[in-house]
């Protein structure tokens, strides 16, 4: 601002206001060098003592400008979490499916009658397999029962 001017321009007024506000808070849009000079002058005057009223005003201003911290759990976080969980579940499934097959079932011993029927069936006199089938039926029931028990555990 020129001291010879009678009225400051609007631009000069705005600059002065910004500088005043910056001096008030110690930082702002004013040039850093000017702020530093102002701070030194203020320190030389009162050794940095802060007026309690001004201190309260600064605190109120800072609190009013402070914004709450943004929550981090956005849909992206949820999506990544769900994907990770699915991948872990799939890996568990694969590991279990590709594991070794269980041991063979301990099948019941065939009854003597069945073995006799087999022997008789190997002769030319035995025209039909029906007698063998009849002896096989109860043994089949026992075998399937064992298998179901083995895999039902």
């Amino acid at each position, binding site marked *: 601002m020129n001291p010879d001017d009678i009225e400051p321009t609007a631009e000069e007024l705005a600059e002065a206001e910004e500088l005043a506000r910056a001096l008030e808070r110690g930082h702002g849009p004013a040039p850093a060098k000017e702020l530093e000079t102002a701070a030194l002058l203020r320190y030389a005057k009162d050794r940095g003592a802060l007026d309690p009223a001004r201190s309260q005003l600064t605190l109120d201003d800072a609190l009013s400008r402070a914004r709450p911290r943004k929550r981090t759990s956005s849909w992206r976080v949820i999506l990544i*979490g769900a994907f990770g*969980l699915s991948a*872990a*579940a799939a890996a*568990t*499934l694969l590991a*279990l*499916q590709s*594991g070794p*097959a*269980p*041991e*063979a*079932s301990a*099948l019941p*011993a*065939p009854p*003597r009658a*069945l*073995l006799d029927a*087999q*022997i008789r*069936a*190997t*002769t*030319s006199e035995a025209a*039909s*397999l*029906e007698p*063998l*089938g009849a002896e*096989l039926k109860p*043994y*089949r029931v026992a*075998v*399937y029962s064992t*298998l*179901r028990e*083995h*895999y*039902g*555990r």
Partner: protein
Amino acid sequence: MTRVACATVLVLVALLAGCSATRGSEDWVAQAESAHHVADERLAQGDVDGARQVLRSATETSVPKKTNPEDARVVRQDLHYRLAALELSQNRPDEARRWATAGLELGRGTDVFTANLYIARGKALEKQGDASGASRDYHDALLITEALLDKSLGKGTP
């Protein structure tokens, strides 16, 4: 709290996976057993084609991965034997032979089921006039039966 929930979900998934792995084998075994029952019922009603269809469909069901191969062989060989015996009863030795041979290709065990397939194929060969082929199969069946008899009498194991 979220971590606890995640861990719980993982444990539940693992348990479910473990159950479903053997559950598949159990279901498969039950399905094969059911095929035998249904075939019996159809045969009792004189529905040979229905019985054949049920048994054939059971042989085509894929074996669950978690099934022991020996158990799978036993179940599948028994189904093949049923089909071979059914075809023999219908005087279709070609088909009987085909089912018995397919069953033997699944593996050979020292058990009733492998022996039955040799017997069924021997019968089919006999009907086809192949006496030497039938003798070979009967011989193989008798070797297994003899081993089973020895085992039942306690001679098989020292």
